[in-house]
């Protein structure tokens, strides 16, 4: 076991972890942040996507020990005081949530994109969401949702 200190959703935490643990396991098991989903567990499907220093990564293949001293944001870190984040609202409006398994990851990739590009074009949205597999909602709704989110954030 070894100690790990990092910032999760704005809060500093120190945990005792196994050296080989993945970030996804530590988030789900040690911190009960089960919004981060485990799908393929080999870095293909994107369900486990979290933001590491603002950038989307697959937490199922990131060693937990690697985030020492860093900032990690999961889907639980987006809503504030019980209010959904505008990107989350946009996904509901666009009907871009069906079974919901891939949704947390997709929303976090959308957040990373919209943090850098206020009004991304369709090709950019497709590129930035290309690391997510969805088997029910459909990809067109994701693009609509990101567009709606961009407008919401722009108005704020």
């Amino acid at each position, binding site marked *: 076991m070894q100690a790990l200190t990092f910032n999760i959703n704005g809060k500093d935490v120190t945990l005792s972890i196994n*050296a080989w643990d993945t970030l996804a396991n530590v988030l789900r098991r040690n911190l009960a942040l089960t919004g981060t989903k485990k799908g393929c*567990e080999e870095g293909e499907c994107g369900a486990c996507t979290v933001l590491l220093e603002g950038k*989307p990564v697959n937490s199922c*293949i*990131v060693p937990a*020990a*690697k985030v020492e001293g860093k900032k990690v944001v999961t889907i639980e870190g987006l809503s504030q005081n019980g209010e959904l984040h505008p990107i989350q609202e946009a996904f509901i409006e666009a009907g871009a949530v069906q079974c919901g398994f891939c949704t947390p990851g997709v929303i976090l990739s959308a957040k990373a994109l919209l943090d850098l590009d206020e009004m991304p074009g369709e090709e950019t949205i497709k590129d930035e969401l290309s*690391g997510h597999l969805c088997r029910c909602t459909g990809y067109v709704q994701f693009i609509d949702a990101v567009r709606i989110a961009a407008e919401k954030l722009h108005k704020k």
Partner: protein
Amino acid sequence: MKVDRYLIPKNVEEAIDYLCRYSGKAKVIAGGTDLMLWIKEGKVQANALIDITEIDELRHIEFTESEMIIGAAVTHAEIASNENIKKCFPCLSDGCRYVGSPQIRNIGTVGGNIVSAQPAADSAIPLIALGAVCEILTEDGLRKAPLEELYAGVGKSKIDSTREILIRIIVPRPDSRYGTSLTRFAPREALALPIANTAVKLEIEDNIIKDIRIAMAPVATTPLRPKKAEQYLLGRDIQTPEIFKEAAKIAAGEANPRDSLLRGSSKYRKALAEDLVNNALGNAVKNILKNMEVL
């Protein structure tokens, strides 16, 4: 044997010191996008992992008058978005843009792509075409080797990551007009390993080919430089496009792909390799930099 320490050294001396102390039982990890899977599957074992991505000097991209120097811990996303690399070596920007997904590119490193020694690595293949040289730090000091000589077989690198660390990749900047390109064929446009890829660097003087490097993969157990095709092109005029068709034919003859359930039959892959080489050569000619003073 389970990993029981994950260590994050701040400089290369400390990293080498860790490797020495574990005498072969620790392993270097960079992004870990391959290595973590291999550890989970039990294919790779180590008592400790030495993470080199917090070592500042391994995280830079630098251009000098004669060279481009890339730290081994630079990510694919960082290379793909680097404006100088887009201008000078588009084959490398393109290759890094094709690796995995945005999430993989944000964490996977160019050094890892080299040491993983996968047969169709989308960043290592263009680097071979560019004539990259690797700087490897060992207990006894620094050694240098051309990237193409570091492949020992499928997934096997001559860089021993239990004892040495790939620290820098050095690409010479051509002093005459040149163009680079990468062509790639994959089952889908995102998140797919290539069925085949080919990178080219073409240098000319008064339209005559002065230097040519072609890197093809995966058409053999290690990335292939089709030397006969390269030899054929040397000294020929780029204004005669039929030379590229002929060179592609020669290159396909040098390739030896096996039948693969994943990548297709040997015959199909040879035909594909010929097309890719032909297209890569044509695109390199199109990309020949008009202006050498790009930086």
